[in-house]
């Protein structure tokens, strides 16, 4: 019993210490952001690694998710004779929910894990300490550009995901199942609101980008500098990011659409 209480206490202390370190890390990261104004080339370089290299997985996933939505949506709507509302169903599902959420999950798996592994390896090979010895702050030179790149990339990737998804649903709905293309696009245009739907989706994707990139960078920076430590940190990035995305999605949806 005592041992159980002791391990519970140890776990609690470790968790709170990590939370504290994570928030201190966030503060230091934010303090490093103004320096990027004069060195935006560092951010552009990271935009390529974090954003551009994630485009392929987003395109393919978005296309298939849209095609599945098109098929499933048609099968449900056709029972009510409302198959021409397929465009609305697909666009609202993607723009409000699936676009930001699935993109963030894919982003955590593709870019988040890569960021953690990169920073963790830089730490274990003393590259970060080496920079400090050259009076170069790793927070400004390494961490801040990657964070800003993640923050910029996520909403753009989510927008690409939603656009490709809608196109995939149109391919299936119009090309395979015979839904009228005029009805598909016009109903979508009429029922999808710029502020209510699209802007809220963009806000969600920015929040997810913030959280996923923060978790990924912190896990790498806080990793035990061994191969096992970096491996565990990479796993933690994906798991914690997934929990954070799904939990925050509920909170944001409730705030945006739940009339709370």
């Amino acid at each position, binding site marked *: 019993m005592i041992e159980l209480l002791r391990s519970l206490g140890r776990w609690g202390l470790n968790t709170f210490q990590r939370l504290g370190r994570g928030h201190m890390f966030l503060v230091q990261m934010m303090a490093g952001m103004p320096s990027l104004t004069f060195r935006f080339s560092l951010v552009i370089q990271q935009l390529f690694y974090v954003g551009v290299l994630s485009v392929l997985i987003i395109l393919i996933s978005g296309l298939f998710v849209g095609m599945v939505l098109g098929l499933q949506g048609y099968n449900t709507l056709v029972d009510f004779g409302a198959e021409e509302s397929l465009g609305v169903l697909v666009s609202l599902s993607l723009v409000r929910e699936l676009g930001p959420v699935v993109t963030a999950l894919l982003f955590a798996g593709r870019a988040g894990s890569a960021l953690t592994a990169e920073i963790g390896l830089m730490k274990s*090979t*003393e*590259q970060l*300490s*080496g920079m400090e*010895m*050259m*009076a*170069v702050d790793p927070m400004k*030179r390494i961490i801040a550009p990657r964070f800003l790149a993640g923050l910029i990339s996520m909403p753009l990737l989510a927008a690409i995901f939603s656009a490709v998804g809608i196109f995939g649903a149109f391919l299936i709905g119009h090309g395979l199942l015979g839904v009228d293309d005029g009805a598909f696009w016009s109903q979508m245009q009429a029922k999808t609101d710029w502020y209510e739907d699209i802007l809220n989706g963009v806000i969600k994707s920015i929040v997810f980008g913030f959280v996923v990139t923060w978790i990924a960078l912190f896990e790498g920076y806080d990793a035990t500098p061994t191969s096992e430590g970096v491996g565990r940190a990479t796993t933690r990035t994906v798991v914690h990011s997934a929990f954070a995305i799904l939990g925050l999605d509920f909170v944001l949806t409730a705030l945006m659409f739940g009339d709370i």
Partner: protein
Amino acid sequence: MGMLFQSGALLTDINVFENVAFPLREHTKFPESMIRDLVLMKLQAVGLRNARDMMPAELSGGMARRVALARAVTLDPMMIMYDEPFTGQDPISMGTLVNLIRRLNDAMGLTSIIVSHDVAETTQIADEIYLLSGGKVIEKGTPETLKTSGSEWVKQFLQGLPDGPVPFHYPGNDFSKDLLNAEEKR
């Protein structure tokens, strides 16, 4: 102040030239032509001018440490700290590094602090040696003074003796007692 890490700590995503140029780009606003000249001078000093386009992953351990040395002296520091610079080097690299450290020290008028377990190599080039154990200075002096020291600890360390003030066996239970204690599982 410059520092040479045991691993070299080169940035793995940029080549040798950019690694040496890194401190200059971060701390100065020198024109590109001047940066090029300075980097080539430092690389020439460590004998790796023609390896400037190689990536850190393509370098041997000794070459990586020489590049790191070039990077450490790029900003002409007053002092350099070396963390185990001779560990894991083949005899040629070891000899090269030993000479380089002393030559750079004299040519640039540096103060060099070397942390090392390689007694023979360090005594070749050191002006003064401090022997540390358990966070305390056990003995200090010139290499000649230490070689003639009467301290058992110094003798054990300099001659690499397996037993002495630093025991071979990790302290704990007596061996005979351990053998007779059959009830204990391990």
